């Protein structure tokens, strides 16, 4: 328990009077990929946005390396080491690729090392170096997703949160995306991944949680869940 990087306990979130999450608990251990899966509207994005401070929980606790994040502003949480690539990527479309990356290293911890971090990002994403002076909005969908992830890694986060990275991408680019996730994992980055592409997500995940209409329905290792007949029936039948 003491070793957990992220620990979410009994989290409740509501939009106005409408409940979205009802007592969800989950955890992410350092160095792992954890997948959070479930149908549309199950509350996955809500959970991620609450972790990074964009939404305020009604009850429950969120701890990063033992420190509570509840009541903290998103910018404070970002500085504590969580990098969140939101649904829709959250790129600054009018700004150049380079400027987006520089802003990824905005926080005081990373800013003095911007140059070094930039070089590191370019080795991982050579495409972005070619396009450094282009506006982010002019990139292709796949490139935009790469940029969003690269920007998030610029702060050397202790936890990288990815919300639907494969959304709207062609199958080939989705493959690249997942191999990139594994590369990052290989470099020791801890990842919390939300995906609708459940099969792929469970394949790369060390551990996974299944959300169903705002509550936790199941959890287990990625391999276990892939083999689970109920999961196969409920979520993968349509996809495979």
């Amino acid at each position: 328990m003491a070793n957990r990087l992220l620990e979410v306990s009994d989290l409740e979130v509501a939009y106005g009077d409408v409940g979205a999450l009802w007592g969800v608990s989950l955890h992410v251990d350092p160095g792992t990929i954890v997948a959070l899966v479930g149908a549309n509207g199950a509350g996955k994005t809500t959970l991620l946005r609450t972790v990074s401070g964009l939404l305020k929980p009604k009850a429950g606790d969120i701890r990063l390396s033992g420190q509570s994040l509840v009541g903290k502003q998103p910018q404070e949480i970002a500085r504590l080491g969580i990098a969140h690539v939101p649904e829709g990527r959250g790129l600054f479309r009018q700004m150049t690729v380079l400027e987006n990356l520089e802003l990824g290293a905005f926080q005081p911890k990373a800013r003095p090392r911007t140059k070094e971090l930039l070089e590191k990002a370019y080795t991982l994403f050579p495409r972005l170096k070619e396009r450094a002076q282009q506006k982010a909005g002019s990139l292709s969908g796949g490139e935009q997703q790469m940029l969003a992830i690269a920007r998030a890694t610029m702060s050397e986060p202790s936890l990288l949160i990815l919300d639907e990275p494969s959304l709207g991408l062609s199958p080939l680019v989705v493959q690249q995306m997942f191999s990139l996730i594994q590369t990052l994992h290989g470099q020791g980055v801890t990842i919390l991944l939300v995906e609708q592409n459940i099969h792929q997500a469970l394949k790369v995940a060390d551990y996974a949680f299944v959300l169903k209409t705002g509550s936790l329905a199941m959890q287990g290792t990625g391999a276990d869940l892939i083999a689970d007949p109920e999961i196969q029936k409920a979520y993968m039948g349509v996809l495979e």
Partner: protein
Amino acid sequence: MVNLPPPEILLQLSLNGALGGAMYGVAAVGLSLIFGTMRLIFLAQGAMIILAAYFVRALFYGLGIDPFLSLLIVVPVGLVVGWLIYQGLFRKAAAEEDRNVSLLIAVGLMFLVQNLMTVIWGGNTAGVVTSYTASGIELLGVRTSFTRSMGFLIALAGTGLVILFLRKTIVGKAVRAASEDMDAATLMGISPHRVNAIAFAIGISLAGAAGVAVATTFPFNPFAGFIFSLKALVALALGGIGNVTGALAGGILLGLIEAYVQFFISGGWTNAIAYGVFLLVLMFKPEGLFSRPYKKA
């Protein structure tokens, strides 16, 4: 057939229009910054400009400080005042979802500043008359007012500095990022209050610079600010809300429109036509006349 006036008259009109319009432009740049991060129409901007003009006048008649030299005082003071205005008046409201609240605080501030000026300096029209107020210079073969040309230079320099700040410094880039997507900016560790306060500080210091330009060129009174705010809004819409270069260009364009309407139609219709153009642009080219669309992915 329409009889076109001789070219030197046209040139004179264009020059006067552009020089005057630059002042709307610099006011619009300030509005653009504040609107960018806070989504607030800062209606008190014009009143702040007039306040700065009175301040410049007091420095001149009270302490004998040359109006253009007083830029060195007014601009830094503007930075501090802008910062304080944000922290004292808007910080709390910025966190509210209801943006009427900030709009109304801006309106309240406008009332307050206008009427404080009336109480302190009286409601009559005031001006600053220096040894060079009436002097002219030769520009593009046309004689024009020295102070107006200086006002134009101030507008250009002010806008230029703001653009340098926004493009070359990481904090400036953070301001641009926050203008585009505040949520995404906070995920980068950018504090909304910090960028809002910076936008306000720069906006009000630009109002200070514009105040110098106004004080040296126009007679003014405490209530002249509101029209200035409206004109700045028009300039902003012409240039594209959130586009700083466009805001200056929009101001110059508005100045040109006004000069031509005044000459060819009548002074009485200037405002209606300016606002008509404003409505048409809002409806048919809301991104402004000067935005370069980039290829969509």
